[in-house]
């Protein structure tokens, strides 16, 4: 696989059956909300949708302090205190939405969670298209007990995926129709998501 296309975005530092947390190699370089990422534990390949990203201090008890009083711009702060880049870290959390077992794609949870220190890659458009041939993963997203509003994550995820398609509109409509069926009993949630993926 071409390394130009497969962008490495982090490394797993915490994992469970339903999600994994990865730390970014560079501060603030977490993949966009809703994007499809994957991590490998051959022969398994786990797919996740980024649903949350955080930037915090390296040490849990130590909060950053305001430093810009005498600086002209925000960038100046980082230039005058280069250690900051090492004292802070960016992490993101991905919800596991499917996996590939021996090259075969499944839209359900993998038999075991990701390994710590596995590399996390952002999926290239080809793979996004392959994965989104089926919308079964939407059900996992809809029912995930995550602290972020589900509607937002689903909308973001569909928006992200649609970028891999030439005919974005057709993809959005197809996804919308799937959601309309899944959310037949919850019209307001459906409206919120559709509002988020429109155009």
């Amino acid at each position, binding site marked *: 696989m071409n390394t130009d296309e497969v962008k490495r975005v982090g490394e797993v530092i915490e994992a469970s059956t339903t999600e994994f947390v990865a730390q970014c190699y560079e501060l603030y370089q977490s993949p966009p909300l809703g994007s499809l990422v994957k991590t490998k534990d051959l022969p398994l390949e786990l797919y996740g949708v980024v649903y949350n990203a955080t930037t915090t201090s390296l040490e849990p008890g130590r909060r950053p302090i305001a430093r810009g009083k005498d600086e002209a711009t925000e960038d100046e702060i980082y230039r005058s205190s280069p250690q900051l880049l090492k004292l802070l870290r960016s992490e993101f959390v991905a919800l596991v939405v499917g996996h590939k077992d021996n090259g075969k794609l499944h839209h359900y949870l993998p038999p075991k969670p990701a390994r710590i220190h596995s590399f996390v890659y952002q999926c290239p458009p080809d793979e996004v298209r392959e994965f989104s041939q089926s919308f079964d993963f939407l059900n996992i997203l809809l029912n995930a007990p995550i602290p972020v509003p589900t509607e937002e994550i689903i909308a973001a995820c569909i928006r992200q995926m649609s970028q891999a398609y030439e005919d974005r509109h057709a993809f959005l*409509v197809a996804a*919308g*129709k799937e959601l309309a069926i899944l959310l*037949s009993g919850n*019209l307001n949630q459906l409206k919120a998501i559709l509002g988020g993926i429109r155009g």
Partner: protein
Amino acid sequence: MTQQEENQRLGIVVSGSLNKGVEVRLDSSASVEDMAVGRFVTIEGQKRRFFGMITDISLGVIDQNLTITPPNTSDPFIAEVLAGTSTYGTIHVLPTLTIGGDVATMIEGPQSVKTVPSHFSVVNLASQRDVELVFGSEDEKKFYIGTPLDMETKVCLDLAEFVKRSNGIFGKSGTGKTFLTRLLLIGMLQKGTAVNLVFDMHSEYGWESRSEEGRKVKALKQLFPSKVAVFTLDEESSRRRKVSTDFVVRIGYDEIEPEDIALLRQTLNLTEASVQAVYQLAREFGDRRWIEATLAMEDGDETKQLLTRLSIHESTYRNLRRGLETIRRLPFLLPHSPDNPVRRILEYLDKGINVVLEFGRYTDITAYILVANLLSRRIHAQYQEIMERAIGEDIAPPHPLVITIEEAHKFLNQEVASQTIFGIIAREMRKYNVTLLVIDQRPSGIDSEVMSQIGTKITCLLDNERDIDSVLTGVPNKSELKSVLSKLESRQQALIFGHAVPMPVVVRTREYGSAESYRDFISTKESKQAEKDIDELWK
């Protein structure tokens, strides 16, 4: 139509019953607005293919809240997503036949349904081939009457079956009953399945007349000169219209029997007592002389004595007298007719020549009822005699005879249906090889007993509830057909159901009136004269 369009998928069966038909949920790709009641569909069951007709179309929502707080459909994206998922269309299909699949249908063709397709069977628009399979193609017995909605396939009537029973053509005024009747008459002529006697009230079947658009339309005699004879009651009118008539009908008073007057009770405004008086007078003076004698009675003691003797009240006599005066004013009635029209008509019919009786200016209903009844009664009696002789002596029965009457509710309404000859013909059907083709715009006026005996009904648009009900009496799945019937277009569309078609069908009637259509009607072996006429039209 391309192959792909032929197998256009509409949706899947989701519920239903044999009695009420099945519900089909439309795919999101099939628009509700493209559906039309009366269209044919096929349902691919697991073991059989079903053939049916769309009888209703409706809208559904997955969640009632959608109807209360409708989404913002001005946004095309939202509208597109919701179409076919949260909001969807359903069509109601009445499966009527099975085509292909089991042994019986392979050997004997389409069979009527005895079950319903299983859940989620795929529903397609019927292809040309399917429709052909069901309605057959034109042959010696089958006559092409029109095409189904949105299709080019021919719907054919089995005319041999058709003439075995009495048939009806119904529809509001101006919906094309006359054109349909012409078509059917031509069909019967062309296929030679029966001879026709047409009581042509408005003189439009024998010789050319004008269509509503003012175009000249040719009629039977011009298309089949050797097979049609035009009789007329009104020589002058026929001459003015340059009709070549074969016989001028004159009827003598002596041929009018008391029963003929009884039928005219309503139109002549006679009381029940007057009708009784007619019978008494007929007994007194004799069946053949009574009208003349009654009309000759003068006010005086003699008359009074006679009336007292017959215990006829003075007012009854006046009432009857007024009625008879009306009849006397009909110019085609003479004290004695020089020729016998019944014999003449029978001569022609016997030779296999169809007779159209034009009424010319006498479009008055009294004249029509009187003449139609009088002639039909005698012709029927003769037919009965010939038929009985044919059975007894084992010789060929006479040609099947079809009598065409207009304004049928005047002959076949509840009060007189039991008395008129038409009521009898309609009921006893084909025993004597005489059947009716009734044309009417108020079918609700026709006796329900007669209506139920009508084999094939062809109805154009009807919008009166009672008329629709009466046309559909005795038809299974009445309510489904009702919605189809009331949605017909007001021109050139008709619903055909009954004996001569395997299932109810809505047709756009075959074109009539262009030179090309005439050419289609006349096969090559027809007379040279007609071909010459056609050629002239082309010049």
